[in-house]
């Protein structure tokens, strides 16, 4: 990994707290087996068989004792099917020194659990405290150290991918590097599988979370899944972020088994996972809770194996334990046996799914055939044949412009250099003409994009859409084109 891409101290020796050499993969596998608790993959399989959407929170605090209390309380109060260690941003970016310093000075200043600073022995302590399997959720373009600590801790589910944990999570890590680092992680999963332990690998299809078109999310997951499967990953969770449009979300979730069938080798278990709405959340508790329940219901109808929940404090900051409990409890209501009668317009869902599958095909099929898939992906992003909106990284162009159509579904206003067939471009354009007319002015376009970002705040009338009530005071508006980011020297 190049010096420019991640701080040199990223590879600094692991802090003192992470005592002792790491166990070997064989030792970790033996430890996991000896734990006598189900792996995440087993829980997902069992939930799918029961027709229950597994429920999982995000949760991570800096201090170890606080983390224990958090997990123990969540398990005691709601017994989520899978529990989480959300990792702090320093650790994610290999800023281990900063993570350790903040941990020592003021652990409450950390926005997650600094797993590497705490070390694998403490990881085991967490794991042994809790009956549910644990997953590491982070956002690290290079998660090799973190992965090793996690596996040594006996943790059986690990989120991320070489694209999805790079572009939304860092500025200057070349894709080739992150893809390479994640191939290493996936390879280690293969090794562990040979030792009898299947690690569930969740791919972060949520990406930049704000107005991500379903076919972008799924195409990137397909690519990551193919790469993972090639080096031995056996259980893949494809996470999709709720867009907020019922038919589109159900269709996207139901596309996942089809995509797996189409693009992955046989023998790989693939789960669909829904991330409850990942964009700008409503601020009022009741509205946030409406959205939380809606997400959970979408997961059920879409046949997801698992749901990652949000809380009514989402708009404000990392939730306290009580809010996390409330979010889990509410989401679990969508698993109610009394809601079997809730259905969707199946025709509409089928139509959406066909379009999604066709768009994904446009995006991935030109790449999947190529000998050097990683090289092909890197090149595609450089040329805009793959892209994501609102990239945090300079390695995606963010030339594509998403908008919501009249029904609230996310469409492409501009497809940039994405290799979509003319029919697909036309369909998207037509759907959006309904909203802005054939040739929207720059102003109405940017106002509209901002409104789309704040979609649910408008749905709940926490804020009037700007078209309806043009603002008098200057307010930020959305960039129709990516703003210029100066290259650092």
């Amino acid at each position, binding site marked *: 990994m190049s010096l420019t891409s991640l*701080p040199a101290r990223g590879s600094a020796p692991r802090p003192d707290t992470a005592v002792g050499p790491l166990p070997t993969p064989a030792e970790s596998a033996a430890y996991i087996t000896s734990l006598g608790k189900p792996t995440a993959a087993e829980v997902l399989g069992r939930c799918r068989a029961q027709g229950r959407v597994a429920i999982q929170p995000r949760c991570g605090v800096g201090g170890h004792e606080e983390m224990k209390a958090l997990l123990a309380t969540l398990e005691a109060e709601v017994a989520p099917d899978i529990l989480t260690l959300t990792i*702090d*941003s*320093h650790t*994610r*970016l290999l*800023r281990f020194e*900063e993570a350790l*310093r*903040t941990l020592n000075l*003021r652990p*409450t*200043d*950390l*926005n997650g659990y600094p797993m590497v600073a705490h070390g694998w022995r403490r990881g085991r302590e967490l794991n042994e405290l809790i009956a549910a399997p644990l997953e590491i959720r982070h*956002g690290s373009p290079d998660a090799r150290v973190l992965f090793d600590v996690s596996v040594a801790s006996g943790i059986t589910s690990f989120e991320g991918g070489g694209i999805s944990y790079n572009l*939304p*999570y*860092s*500025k*200057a890590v070349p894709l080739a590097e992150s893809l390479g680092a994640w191939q290493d992680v996936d390879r280690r999963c293969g090794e562990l599988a040979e030792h009898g332990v299947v690690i569930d690998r969740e791919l972060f299809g949520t990406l*930049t979370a*704000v107005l991500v078109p379903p076919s972008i999310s799924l195409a990137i997951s397909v690519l990551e899944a193919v790469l993972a499967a090639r080096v031995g990953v056996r259980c893949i969770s494809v996470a999709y972020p709720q867009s907020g449009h019922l038919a589109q979300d159900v269709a996207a979730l139901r596309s996942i088994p089809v995509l797996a069938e189409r693009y992955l080798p046989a023998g790989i278990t693939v789960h669909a996972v829904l991330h409850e709405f990942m964009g700008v959340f409503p601020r009022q508790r009741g509205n946030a809770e409406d959205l939380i329940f809606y997400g959970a219901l979408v997961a059920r109808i879409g046949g997801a194996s698992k749901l990652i929940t949000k809380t009514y*404090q989402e708009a*404000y*900051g*990392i*939730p*306290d334990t009580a*809010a996390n409990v409330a979010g889990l409890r509410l989401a679990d209501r969508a698993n109610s046996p009394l809601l079997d009668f809730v259905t969707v317009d199946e025709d509409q869902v089928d139509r959406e799914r066909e379009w999604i599958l066709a768009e994904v095909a446009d995006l991935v099929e030109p790449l999947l055939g190529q000998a050097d898939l990683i090289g092909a992906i890197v090149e595609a992003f450089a040329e805009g044949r793959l892209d994501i909106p*609102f*990239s*945090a*990284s*300079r*390695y*995606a*162009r*963010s*030339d594509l412009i998403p908008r919501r159509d009249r029904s609230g579904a996310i469409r492409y206003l501009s497809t940039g250099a994405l290799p979509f067939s003319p029919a697909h471009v036309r369909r998207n354009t037509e759907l959006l003409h309904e909203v802005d007319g054939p040739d929207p002015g720059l102003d109405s376009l*940017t106002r509209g994009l*901002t409104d789309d*970002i704040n979609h649910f705040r408008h749905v709940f009338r926490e804020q009037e859409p700007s078209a309806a009530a043009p603002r008098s*005071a*200057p*307010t*930020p*508006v*959305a*960039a129709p*084109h*990516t*703003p*210029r*980011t*100066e*290259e*650092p*020297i």
Partner: protein
Amino acid sequence: MPSVPNQLSQSPATRKVILGVAASDSHAVANHLIAFFLRGLGFDVVNLGTCTPVEEFAEACARHPEAEAVIIGSLNGHVHEDLRGLDRAKQSGRITCPVIVGGNLSVGSHKDGSSHDRLYAAGVDHILGDPSELPGLLAELQVDRERAAVTLGLAAS
């Protein structure tokens, strides 16, 4: 992403600001929007984007000594650790213009004023709640600067 030229600020950029997101923070959306907003108002925005350490802001200041302000967003709650070194950069004269910070300035959903106090102590000059307050603050800062220049001129005369 960076190679797309800004097609909006067609008037010759007269006023320059440096913009970025704090070191450990990859939240990009507000950054995209603020850059576009300021450019729409005619500012020349040097946008360093996400994950920008203090060192990188200081280097940008060196390259753009005419910048009127350094504007830093932070959403992920790590602003305090991420701005470590800001006071040193200011004391050593590597960052001379005012530093404006906004976003979500502490971890957790219950906020009090203590986070702001810590930031002022760490070298931040102004904390804003909403990006729409930026133009007003930048205008005030300009007045201050001009007044200071006049005072300086008077003193020198």
